[in-house]
């Protein structure tokens, strides 16, 4: 008998082994200087294509219901999906829906010089918030995030930059909250970095 007749495969998110960890004298999210919360998104799809091609733009819009962000460092979002600008011909789709389904739907309407790659296992999203956030960002990255709050723009802001000794896509959510999307294999390192970084006022990783 095949052993593939087994119960539901066990899912372990990238932060599986660091959830609940904390630094400083904090035991919960309420008294921590930095709160780290992993968001389990349904899928991450890397999308490539020619932004100057109107058909490509229209096809993406027709499937996702949101249009491609064409301004560097911005993203478009609706309730369940976000489309982040990664480069002049590269975007990251983060969706609540399954990756294979979304990939198939996009492939069905896209033609020619395009690429759709399911990278759902390769990334995770950590939401960062709390009074220590700006301090933690200054310690973690060379990018000027302070400017996001000083000169607010209408656009939704995101940027790919260095984060500790790794890299991250950092997404501005609201004053005092950012999300970072990082590579799976760096999750333990980034978690360790954040726990250390915000230890003075405490860091708590949500269970």
């Amino acid at each position: 008998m095949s052993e593939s007749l087994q119960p539901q495969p066990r899912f372990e998110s990238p932060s599986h082994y660091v959830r609940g960890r904390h630094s400083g004298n904090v035991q919960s999210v309420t008294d921590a200087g930095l709160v780290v919360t992993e968001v389990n998104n349904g899928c991450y799809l890397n999308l490539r294509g020619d932004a100057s091609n109107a058909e490509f733009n229209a096809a993406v819009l027709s499937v996702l219901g949101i249009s491609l962000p064409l301004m560097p460092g911005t993203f478009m979002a609706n309730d369940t999906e976000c489309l982040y600008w990664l480069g002049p011909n590269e975007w990251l789709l983060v969706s609540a829906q399954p990756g294979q389904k979304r990939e198939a739907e996009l492939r069905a309407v896209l033609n020619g010089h395009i690429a759709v790659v399911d990278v759902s296992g390769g990334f995770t999203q950590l939401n960062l918030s709390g009074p220590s956030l700006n301090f933690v960002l200054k310690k973690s990255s060379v990018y000027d995030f302070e400017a996001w709050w000083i000169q607010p723009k209408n656009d939704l802001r995101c940027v790919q930059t260095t984060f500790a000794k790794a890299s991250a896509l950092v997404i501005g959510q609201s004053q005092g909250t950012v999300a970072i999307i990082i590579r799976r294999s760096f999750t333990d390192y980034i978690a360790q970095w954040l726990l250390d970084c915000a230890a003075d006022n405490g860091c708590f990783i949500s269970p």
Partner: protein
Amino acid sequence: MKQKNRLVVFGRTDPNQPINFTFNGKPYQGLLGDTLASALLANGVNVVGRSFKYARPRGIVGHGPEEPNGIIQLGSGSATVPNLKVTQVELYEGLDAKSVNGWPSVNIDVMGLVGAFGRLMPPGFYYKTFMYPKKLWMTYEHFIRKAAGLGKTPTEADPDTYEKLNQHCDVLVVGAGPAGLTAALEAGLTGARVIIADEQSEFGGSLLASTQPIDDQSSTDWIAQTVSAITAMPNVQRLSRSTVFGYYDHNFLTILEKRTDHLGINSPQGARQRLHRVRAKQVVLATGAFERPLVFAHNDIPGVMQASSVSTYVNRYGVAPGEKLVLATTNDNAYQTAIDWYNSGRVVVAVVDTRQATNGPLVSHVKDLGIEVLQGYGVIQAMGSKRVRGALVAPLNENGTKVTGPVEQLKCDLIATSGGWSAAVHLSSHTGAKPIWDDAIVSFRPGISKQQERSVGACNGTFDLAQGLLEGALAGSEAAQLAGFGDGQVKRGMPIVNTLEEQAQQALFLIPHTLPSSRAPSQFVDLQLDVSAAGIELAVTEGFESVEHVKRYTALGFGTDQGKLGNINGMAILANALGQSIAETGTTIFRPSYTPTTFGAIAGRDIGELFDPERYTAMHRWHEQQGAVFEDVGQWKRPWFFPNQQETMHQAVNRECMAVRNSIGILDASTLGKIDIQGPDAAEFITRMYTNSYLTLAPGKCRYGVMLKEDGMIFDDGVCACISDNHYLMFTTTGGAAGVLAWLELWQQTEWPELQVYFTSVTDHWATATITGPNARNVMAKVCDDIDLSADKFGFMDWRDGTVAGLAARVFRISFTGELTYEINVAANYGRYLWERLMAAGAEFDITPYGTEAMHVLRAEKGFIIVGQDTDGSMTPTDMNMDWVIGKKKTFSFVGKRSLERSDCLRDNRKRLVGLKTLVPTAVIPEGAQIVNDPHQPLPMAMQGHVTSSYFSANLDHSIALAVVKGGLNRMGEIVYCPAADGSSIAAEIVNSVFYDPKGERQHV
């Protein structure tokens, strides 16, 4: 405890808060607000160290970063900090300091011998004395290092933490003296993001020790008012105890903030120091100036001090460092010190002014106080040994170059000197700007730089307070405007300052003696390194002309004070000796760091486990739980081997290797680089990058390829699979993944943008479990029922989509062991689940997890190379016996192809990959060992090649090695030798590089 030099007016120290400390083992008491220097002076401590070369007793000279003598070590053991300046250490309860220069004690002349020895230490001493005999250097060095005593390194790890902050601002103001404060205020008023940093504990700079009223209030009240205005602005970040120590390209500056040094040797909480890495749109430098000491004979005796420092100790700290003052000056400005000293209630013996006639308001004021002013006189020599006892004064000619009359002695215990002021052009110089000498102010001024910066106040050569305040305000508003804030207009009214007019100073850098410098008692230029005027003149006599050479020959300015006091005098003396102007002579280049900077702060938190990212696979915790020993491969942590209890590494690796050949092993291969390649031109592009062709590779098929750099040398290797039309998956080596992706992007983006292809890293997306061995198919069959596993349906170098352990998977039949192998890839979030299911399914076959060491042995048995181990950037595919991987029929000249035809690549005697079989089966040759024909030949031996991989093969029951040997393919059966450092050598026979299953039958089942 009595502080005999403490005045009744306490300045900015607090008489109600006494602080206990020890210096060189003796207990003392100071006050809150004291530096270690002011507290030592308050207690009448004269000698704080011994000089570097001559071991002469030395006392405190300055009051800031310019201090050359008071160099101390704080604390002991792990809690110790070397080479701090007493003038920059704030006093705290329990502070424990020792002189660094003063073995065995600053007060005992055991070093008299060295002193005598030291007299024979001219410039270039090391070069001259220690060139020969070489053997003696070790003896000399030990002696000199002990005598030099440049501080002790901590004996244990530093218990403190340090951190780095990346800062961005519109305007960075360096220095919070009068000009810096008005600059920050004006810049802040525009709403710009401003950072103002100052190295002192409180803002105010020179004004903290000034008696000059501003706006009808005391200077300290003006500081308080201004600082409070700045504090009210949330857009201004104030950093005190923060030294801007480096100014780098594109307005990048580094600041060392000492957060807790003033509280104790270790931080009570949080980081001890913080390194701010600041990118500023505009910079205002307001770094002030250093008073220039006068150079005269025995000017190093304790009790010879900077005039401005004497005023600072009196006014700011309420400390009078002596009783009877002789003030030696070349300018009006220093007369204020005589006034301050007089007001402290102590005796001013005389003011000795080198100028023939002076009658400015300050001079008149001093005369009105009844103080004797000797005009046209110089202090030509200090008397005393561990403390000044008197000053020899003599009349000078108008130029100040000759003694013109009889010498007389003035009794005193303190000689304050001033040769004018030198602008602190250090940070300006860091930008590459060459300082410009200005005779009018007898100082360098900042040069023109390519940075967005300006200097204001004293560091700009503007020594007048009112002018400095105005310059600061103008610069603050201008800098803000250039950064996009405000209209460039000054908003606040300028403070009213009635400074007294000063008459022209005299440019005098060496007070003459009755004897020439070469015969006079030493006239010290650089106190820390004992460089004298005579030494500089001697360097010129010996033929040195360039200021940079003289600096290195004499060590002028090489100390921890970086010549902040001595450099200008030294350059002027050099200019004089060369018979040229100071402008012609120029200055040495100031470079970062402005003051010594803690290594810990530069490292920040990038230490220990955070030194480099540790990348984990999805199965990492399983490996940990099994007791795996890990190996670093790039940033990845990979299991090296999985020891059972009591097993040695050797035993574990042997067991793992045997399991793979005899039943089944399982390897975590998730770390291999994986690049998804899509686009109409994908196959064409891949074919240009690899040596072989992918144009005809069908979906479901894999091919091994080698990638060359354009010079024809192997750069990476791996398998590439065709997923579907126009869609490929490329595997790279673990360490090469990022480099290969950048390499592909480089060629596509810059050379062949017309090729329609996109690359995406999918390394992290997939978790990969490799099962390998004769039982691999049996295990596979238990966890997968939707792929036909039969050899003719799913053969070697095929891949299939399917379901493994209930998971969507891509399964590749590629092999690095030479056995039947399935590489199973699933989305990484299910990696551990897959692994556990495979372990359970394989249990009946005793499935054995193996690590990178067994993987290396197994592939070496098969003669498979590892790029970066068996190749080193100088190996072609031919060198590796891989001509078969070069596509001969390819029409496009793939990357690296042309270079394979270069004459050097066609040489007959290139090193070729061979196997080595040791004559003694158990002898394992060290990797990297050199290969020779005759181990008894005289040195240097003729090298034949070297060993690239070497292991004991449990499966073959003897040692095996891969090596590259000159003309190796024609030398099969020859015996060569690998000599070791101890004179022994290992003999081995040259054999084919494939040791096991040479026909490759085991993987084709």
